[in-house]
Structure formats: structure tokens, C-alpha cells
């Protein structure tokens, strides 16, 4: 594929995104919730597209296709377990949303700090999130690097791809905070879903239609249609990789923060259902790409080049290949800019805001904007290390965030939980995950995410039972949420009854 075509694709995408980002501005934002949460007024459709774009990144189209190429259908199961885990939003979404509206939380860690009545909780979770999410952003940047290098046979280098993604992520975050991020995300998600679906249909058509496609897999690569298949997806591996992703919608603040943003419960519903619809299509497309590469390019050394190889293949018209490639670059950027914003808000609100008493909103915002490029450059440095398989590294990062899950569940459902319980569980199990990853240890064949979650649950419960809970705050918080949950669902039912009675 010619380099000039690719450059033109990137330029057109950049100009269109900058234009949309510029349009998305709504006056000068001086508050934290204005800049980082869109004033809690985001509608369902944009929220759904942006949630999809933030979650599904370069990892999806490059890493998941690579994972399918390497181990077969287990990759679909892995992604579907994550997908099923998003059901957590149906239970926690309204609770986050109610709490955010009532107490004015900007970040999930701020909520935990307040609920457990201890600032150190917010500081610790914010710092541990940064430690784990910066490598995760690096994974996305590396995705762009692999992609452009693979598509151009080295014509555009890995480093050039990574630099483009880093710069655009910083720019999109800066223009209007979450508003520009969400609108550019939406452009990317729409472009991606249409173009990638067309590509997969063309390839399957080229490989003999649905029956020819699966017939070829069944005849020549039967292992690819079962688990453990060729051995890659042993049950221990499957469990280790899926557990952190099952809780992704709670543990990763760049998505859990989204539960504060919708304008109403109806918008929250739109975000959840819209995401599930998009997610299923994305998942199927990525897995089918991986299968196509198994048929067309057996014997690739690095599974992460499965996607670039497909896009350069004879079945995909060059212009469509370019559109998808640009959409994948955009996907990485849409994930990184959301993470940048979230990390900046965590640092400004939870670390800086708690360290220095009586800091104004505008000062916090200025600090947030200042740290964004610094975080981006750190992610860039990680990406330059060019670590091997994208998906595995990505899972390792999310494993580290999984340790906050017991504390998040306890926020709403266990009044007996204590700040000491949260601090001990997050700090000790976070370190445990780091150690296991550092020394590549897998006790009993299980990965760091499983051990991290197990140990953090035990510590959270055990230490909480031995220490004094914040009785007053817990009672007030949990009672408020429970009462409002009942009230909002009851009023919905009443509204429906009235509608029926009026004969609408």
C-alpha cells in the first residue's frame, strides 16, 4: 500500500477530527466537572459511541485479531466474558450516577475517598491507577506503531506512528476536555464500525462465503474452533486473562468515570445498550479478521501483524484498507485521550486536591491540563520499548486495576467496609500484581489478576472486620442511594402506568 495514500488518510482524519473537536466546545470551561465530565449533561448516543471507542481500541482490531490468529476461538470467549461483565453497569451505573449528582464527584477515587471517609483512600487509588494505566496507554500507542509499520512494510516507522498518536491524543484532550474527546470518539466509532464490517464481509466473500470460510477452518484448522484448541487457551490461561476484563467496567476509571456523565438514567441506558450493540459487532469483526488471517497467512511470526496483513490483501480495496487503518489509529487515540483526561482528573482532584488544602476548582483544572502532556510522554516512552504481544500486556495492566473492585463493591453494598481495609487491600494486592508480573510468576498456573482479586477481597473483608468503619458516612451514603434507587424506579413505573391509563 502506498505511503502517500496512508499519509493522506491520516491528514484527512486529523483535519476532520480537529474540526469536530472545535465544534464541540461550549464556552470556556472553568470547572472540573465541566471539563472532565461535560457538566454531567452528555446524551446517550454520544456516550455510547464514546464508551465504545474508549473501550475498544487498537487492542481490539490488532490485539484480538492477533489473539484469534494465535489461539483460535478462545479469543472470542475472552472478549465475550468482558462483554458480559459490562452488565455490571446495569447494577452500578445508576448508583455511580446518583452519587455523582448528589455529592459532586468528578472521579471514582474521589467517591471512594469520601465514602470511606479518608483522603488517603482517594490518593492511593489515584496513584495506583496511574501506575497501571500508563502502560495500558503505551499498549495502545504500540498498536498504532505496529499497524503503520506493518501496512507500509516499514515505509512509515513504528516510532513515527507512535509520535502521531501521542500528539493527536494530547491535542484532542486539550481542545475541549471530555467534550472534544467524546465527539472525536464518536466520529472514530462510526467510521470504524462501518468500514471494518465492510472489510470482513469482503474477505469472507473472497474466501468462499460463510460456508467456504468456516468449511476451510473446519477442514484445515479444526483446533482454531475449540478450546483449549492448539493449547494456547488452557483453562488457567482463559481464567487468568478474563478475570481482570470481567470487572473492567468497574475497575478502569476511564470507563467507570463515564457513569457520572449521562444527563439522565435514560441516557445512561442509551450508553449501556448502545455500547453492547457496538461491542458485539466489533468483537465479531475482530475475531473473524483473526480467522481470515489463519486461512490466508498461516505461519506469521508475530500475530499482531495479522490485521495489517489482511488490510493489505487482495480482497480489500486500497482505499477501504486506508480508511480502516486510519480508523484503527483513531481507535488507539480515542482510548489514550480518554485515559489522559481521566488520569489528569485523578491527579488534579485526588492527589493535588487532597495534598493542598483549599485549592480552587480553576487551580485544579490548570494542574490537570499541565500533567496531561507529561503523562502522554511517559506512555510514549513505554511504547518505544516495543514489548511483545499487545493483548497480554494489556491484560497485565488491567490486572493491576482489578484490585480496587472489592472496595468499589463495598462502597455501595457493605457498610462495614473501612478505609484501612481499602488501603491495605489496594496497596498489598497492587504490589503483589506488580511482583508477579515483574518476575513472570504464575502460581498454580493462574495469572496476576486472579491472585490480585482474591488477595484484595480477603484483605478488604478481613481488615475491615478488624477496624472501625465510618458509621455515619456509610449510613448516610448507602441509605441515600438505596432510597433514590427505589424512588427512581417507582416513579418510572408510575409514569408508565399513567401513560397506559391515559391511553397513549
Amino acid at each position, binding site marked *: 500500500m502506498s505511503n502517500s495514500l496512508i499519509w493522506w488518510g491520516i491528514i484527512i482524519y486529523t483535519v476532520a477530527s480537529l474540526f469536530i473537536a472545535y465544534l464541540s466546545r461550549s464556552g470556556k470551561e472553568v470547572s472540573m466537572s465541566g471539563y472532565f465530565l461535560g457538566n454531567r449533561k452528555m446524551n446517550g448516543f454520544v456516550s455510547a459511541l464514546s464508551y465504545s471507542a474508549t473501550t475498544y481500541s487498537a487492542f481490539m482490531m490488532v490485539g484480538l485479531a492477533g489473539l484469534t490468529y494465535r489461539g483460535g476461538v478462545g479469543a*472470542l*470467549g475472552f472478549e465475550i466474558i468482558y462483554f458480559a461483565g459490562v452488565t455490571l453497569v446495569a447494577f452500578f451505573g445508576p448508583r455511580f450516577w446518583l452519587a455523582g449528582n448528589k455529592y459532586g464527584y468528578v472521579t471514582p477515587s474521589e467517591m471512594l475517598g469520601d465514602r470511606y471517609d479518608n483522603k488517603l483512600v482517594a490518593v492511593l487509588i489515584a496513584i495506583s491507577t496511574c501506575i497501571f494505566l500508563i502502560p495500558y496507554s503505551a499498549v495502545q500507542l504500540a498498536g498504532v506503531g505496529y499497524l503503520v509499520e506493518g501496512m507500509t512494510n516499514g515505509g512509515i516507522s513504528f516510532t513515527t506512528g507512535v509520535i502521531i498518536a501521542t500528539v493527536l491524543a494530547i491535542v484532542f484532550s486539550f481542545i475541549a476536555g471530555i467534550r472534544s474527546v467524546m465527539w472525536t470518539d464518536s466520529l472514530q466509532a462510526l467510521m470504524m464500525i462501518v468500514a471494518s464490517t465492510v472489510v470482513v464481509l469482503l474477505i469472507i466473500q473472497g474466501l468462499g462465503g460463510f460456508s467456504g470460510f468456516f468449511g476451510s477452518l473446519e477442514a484445515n484448522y479444526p483446533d482454531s474452533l475449540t478450546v483449549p484448541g492448539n493449547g494456547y487457551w488452557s483453562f488457567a490461561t482463559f481464567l487468568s486473562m478474563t478475570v481482570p476484563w470481567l470487572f473492567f467496567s468497574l475497575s478502569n476509571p476511564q470507563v467507570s468515570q463515564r457513569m457520572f456523565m449521562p444527563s439522565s438514567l435514560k*441516557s445512561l441506558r442509551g450508553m449501556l445498550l448502545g455500547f453492547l450493540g457496538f461491542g458485539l459487532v466489533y468483537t465479531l469483526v475482530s475475531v473473524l479478521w483473526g480467522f481470515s488471517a489463519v486461512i490466508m497467512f498461516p505461519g506469521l511470526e508475530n500475530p499482531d501483524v495479522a490485521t495489517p496483513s489482511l488490510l493489505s490483501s487482495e480482497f480489500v480495496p486500497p482505499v477501504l484498507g486506508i480508511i480502516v487503518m486510519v480508523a484503527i489509529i483513531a481507535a488507539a487515540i480515542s482510548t489514550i485521550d480518554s485515559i489522559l483526561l481521566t488520569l489528569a482528573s485523578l491527579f488534579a482532584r485526588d492527589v493535588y486536591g487532597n495534598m493542598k488544602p483549599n485549592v480552587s476548582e480553576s487551580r485544579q483544572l490548570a494542574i490537570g491540563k499541565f500533567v496531561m502532556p507529561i503523562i502522554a510522554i511517559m506512555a510514549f516512552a513505554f511504547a518505544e520499548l516495543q514489548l511483545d504481544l499487545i493483548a497480554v500486556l494489556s491484560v497485565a495492566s488491567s490486572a493491576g486495576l482489578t484490585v480496587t473492585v472489592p472496595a468499589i463493591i463495598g462502597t455501595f453494598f457493605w457498610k462495614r467496609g473501612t478505609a484501612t481495609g481499602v488501603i491495605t487491600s489496594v496497596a498489598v494486592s497492587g504490589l503483589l500484581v506488580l511482583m508477579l508480573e515483574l518476575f513472570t510468576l504464575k502460581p498454580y498456573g493462574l495469572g496476576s489478576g486472579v491472585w490480585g482479586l482474591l488477595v484484595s477481597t480477603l484483605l478488604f473483608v478481613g481488615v475491615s472486620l478488624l477496624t472501625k468503619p465510618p458509621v455515619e458516612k456509610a449510613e448516610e451514603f448507602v441509605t441515600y442511594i438505596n432510597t433514590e434507587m427505589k424512588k427512581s424506579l417507582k416513579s418510572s413505573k408510575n409514569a408508565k402506568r399513567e401513560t397506559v391509563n391515559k391511553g397513549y
Partner: protein
Amino acid sequence: MGKREVFWGVVSCIVILLAYIIPYTFLTNVANWYGSFLLWVGVAFVIIIINLIITKDWRS
């Protein structure tokens, strides 16, 4: 948590557990599109339906 939420919470957990168990037991030798591939796609649709039901009363 209301009774309705608990019920759908349990149903979701069962569906997720089945998504782990069935491919590694009954389908390990079914090397066809209607094996694990179809099962996991089916799970995705069931999950969408569950979410539709849980959130059906969410209004503005």
C-alpha cells in the same frame, strides 16, 4: 438491592459461568462453527436481552 435486581444478578452470574464451563466441557471436540463459536455469540445475545430487561424502567 431490590428482589428484581437480585434475580437478574443471579441470572447474569449463571450465564457467565456457563460461558466458562460449556466450551471447556461439552464443546472441546466440536470443531465446527456451531460449537464454541456459536455458544459465545449466543451468550452475547442473552446478555443484551438481560440488560434490556434490567434497564427497561430507566427514564429521564
